[in-house]
């Protein structure tokens, strides 16, 4: 979520709350000869408010599981999550009088620090990565469609077939069949299980006649493009500059009327690189949550136990 003008009220509310709590702390501190602490009235109030905020913050994850509940917009929740989350360490510090305390409270402090820092890191990523994504990925897709999009690239290149038992039916033809004259027999991906029956394939698949001058493209496709589209991470086409040089070489060695097919193959490769970059960025965008979310729950659980034990003793 980008920090925009909609956050202005929350910024001032957080600032006001920070100043107010610090002023309360300073006002109350001289009343305690041994210094302010978590067991004073104000310290307990600070701790209770901090715990309540923590519960609200983790409730964001639960709220996302019930998006149809009318509990406010996700954006509003996120704004509150961000700013109240930023306020929480101050409240906890005032609650503990800026001391770590014992083992339990030290662990809680550590958890809070990691959770808070990871949240800030995530917030910063949210500010930078979407812009980066918009510039580097021309056709961004939703995260859930990434896998389908990547799979469709090889489909677009080699066509779509359906297998019915050991029989294969061509649904659509791909670029390499239409323009390059590549045999479907060469492009049909191997099926799991039993090998295809060559006779059945020969009976069902119409073999195109070889197109004159397409052999360099055909070889280039089989050697470079196909492994790349199938996910070979060591393929040379993963690198943009290498890709451009290789496709330029193919164009040079192929007739002009086939350049359109070369361009289409290059588009597929470029598309795959973009989708891979989007997937990488989106994974990076989610990575901090692997730290933020679990430790948040551990922090909340520990804080509840700490509150009960501290009040008891």
């Amino acid at each position, binding site marked *: 979520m980008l920090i925009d003008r909609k956050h202005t009220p929350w910024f001032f509310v957080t600032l006001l709350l920070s100043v107010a709590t610090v002023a309360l702390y300073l006002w109350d501190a001289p009343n305690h000869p041994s210094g302010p602490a978590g067991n004073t009235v104000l310290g307990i109030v600070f701790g209770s408010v901090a715990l309540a905020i923590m519960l609200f913050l983790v409730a964001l994850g639960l709220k996302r599981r019930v998006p149809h509940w009318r509990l406010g917009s996700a954006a509003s929740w996120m704004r509150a999550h961000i700013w109240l989350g930023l306020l929480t360490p101050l409240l906890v510090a005032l609650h503990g009088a800026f001391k770590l305390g014992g083992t339990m409270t030290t662990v809680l402090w550590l958890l809070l620090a990691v959770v808070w820092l990871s949240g800030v890191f995530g917030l910063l990523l949210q500010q930078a990565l979407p812009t980066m994504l918009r510039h580097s990925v021309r056709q961004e897709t939703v995260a859930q469609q990434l896998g389908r999009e990547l799979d469709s690239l090889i489909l677009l290149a080699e066509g779509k077939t359906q297998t019915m038992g050991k029989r294969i039916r061509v649904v659509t033809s791909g670029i390499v069949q239409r323009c390059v004259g590549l045999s479907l027999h060469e492009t049909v991906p191997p099926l799991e299980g039993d090998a295809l029956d060559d006779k059945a394939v020969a009976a069902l698949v119409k073999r195109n006649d070889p197109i004159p001058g397409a052999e360099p493209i055909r070889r280039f496709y089989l050697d470079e493009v196909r492994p790349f589209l199938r996910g070979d991470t060591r393929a040379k086409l993963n690198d943009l500059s290498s890709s451009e040089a290789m496709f330029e070489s193919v164009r040079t060695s192929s007739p002009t009327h086939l350049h359109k097919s070369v361009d289409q193959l290059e588009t597929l490769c470029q*598309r795959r690189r973009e989708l891979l970059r989007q997937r990488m960025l989106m994974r990076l965008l989610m990575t901090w949550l692997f730290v933020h979310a679990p430790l948040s*729950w*551990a922090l909340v*659980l520990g804080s509840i136990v700490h509150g009960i034990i501290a009040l008891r003793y």
Partner: protein
Amino acid sequence: MPNDLDPRPLNERFDLRYVHRRTWPKNAIFWSSVIAMLVTGGVLATLSVRRDQAIYSSGELATAHAMFSTDCAQCHQPSQDGDYWLPVRDQACLSCHSAEAHHPHRSNHVTLNAPTGDRLGHAAMDVNCAVCHTEHRGLDHNLSAVADSFCVQCHGDLHRWRREPAPPYPHRQPSVEPTEEGPTANPILAFNHPNPLGSHPEFRVVSKQTPRIDTTLIRFEHHAHMDPQKPGMQDALKKWVAQLEAEGMTHDQIPVVRANGMLNMSCAACHVPDDAGRYMLPIVYEKHCQQCHTLGNSTYGEPVPHGQAIASFVDALAARKLYEQAAKQAEAAKPTTPATGPRPGPTPGPRPGPKPGPRPGPRPGPRSDAGAQPTSIQLASSNIAVITALAQPRPGPRPGPKPGPSRTDTSNNVKPSITPAQHFEFERATISRSLAEQKCIKCHIQLIDVPKPKRPRAGQAPPKLESVDLKSTDLSKIDWRKVKPKAIDWSLVDNARIEWAKVDWRTIHASGWSLLDPRIPDRWMPRSIFDHNAHAALQCASCHAGAEADAPEPESYPATKLTWKLRPTGRTRQIMMPSIDDCRKCHHPPNRTSHGARDGCVTCHTYHDSRAPGLAGHRHTPPAPPARSNISRFLNE
């Protein structure tokens, strides 16, 4: 994507159910959150099952309580109702510690000082032990080293809290002139505060703002005893040193200073620390004075005792004198008495009968055993009643024909005689005055001119002495001449803050001559604590200046009529206690030149009132601190 590249229809190009499908990152985050909670809960549950509560401790216990570090229940005990909450209650502390009562001004403990508590309300503070003695601050935390902020809470603005005069303190105040009551009302924020107005004021006993003098009822001048050139001083010191050497003391142990071939007394000659080395033991005549200042002998050749024994000694002398008078009268009456028949007239004292002298046998008297004259003490120990019986007039008509005024026999219409008790009181007062003028007054101060005792007249009843309840009586209406001296509780006099000199005056007047308590204070600063041993590296004179022979004459003190009589010279008026500036030379916060010694309130003051009953209902007797090694002891060891 261009359509010519992807001829598929839209419904085939996209997964229309993608919303319902959870991607692996979200699933992973969800399950990692679940695992994190399970791990956290598991760890806490395991610790709970194992009853390991150390993780919840807010910090390490102090060394004194380290043995309880794994047993929270030692201090966190449930209430009598057995409820869930386990704060540290005072009873847990009192099960081991015999805590003294709280300062009456701050205590709102209902069983201790209800009126004060009601007056201050709960605004002051609660009185739980753990409020001040905070635990879980680490192994090195000193639980008794309460921070200054606790004291400053009230002493930073005493006007706010002092709504009535200071409460009585049942201890003896220094013998100083009466000044304002109660503790200082100056705001004290620290011993050394950047703002001088917030610093600890000058010690009252040496404050120049309220100058006071040493009004101890003893004639003593340090300067005279520290002057080696004083006539007779060298002879006396040599004799004393020889005596100490004969007792086995080594050269270094003898508390004299040898300089320029002369001996001089050191401070340690009289001022000896107690076993703990904290305070100096009281000056005792027999230990510190008698060597040079003997009291001599009475007219009967018996040594005059000192202290409380002088009372019985005077009684004995008076009894002996009466006895001798009676014997003399009996002896004088013997030749004029006929061999038979009654005595011609009533004679006071000797018994009538054929043998007027003292009877032989157990009755003491000069004639009971011609070879062993009883001493005065023996006479006194036989009771005044013996003397009284000797002088008892015989009732009944006098058979003798001798006319004359009768002093006892009222049946013959003669004037009543002087009673033996009156005789005895007169003799005792006379002897007391004589001894006082010859012996006591050399050291003890006589505040007024005691009138010479008058010989009692016949029929005059002795004054009846009364006891007065000083706590409930209007002191201004008391006729002090009728007050028994022993009925006065000096501590109560101090508490009532009477002008003590007035009380002394009346007391002396009422009793003729009485044994005056010299009122040398055990401690000149009773509201503070001090450890001489900790200051053993310092010279005595660095704090107690003015005792040396070459010490300058102290500046003049305002002397009232009373103080002038008490202390005629500036040296005798001076109270040789250190100024607060002397303490601040070392006790200050760290600065560029020195780390400074501790300057917290509890360095010199204690909060708990050790004189009042403890919280546990019994009086606390603080254990004597172990003897601390000083430098000389360390070197010797």
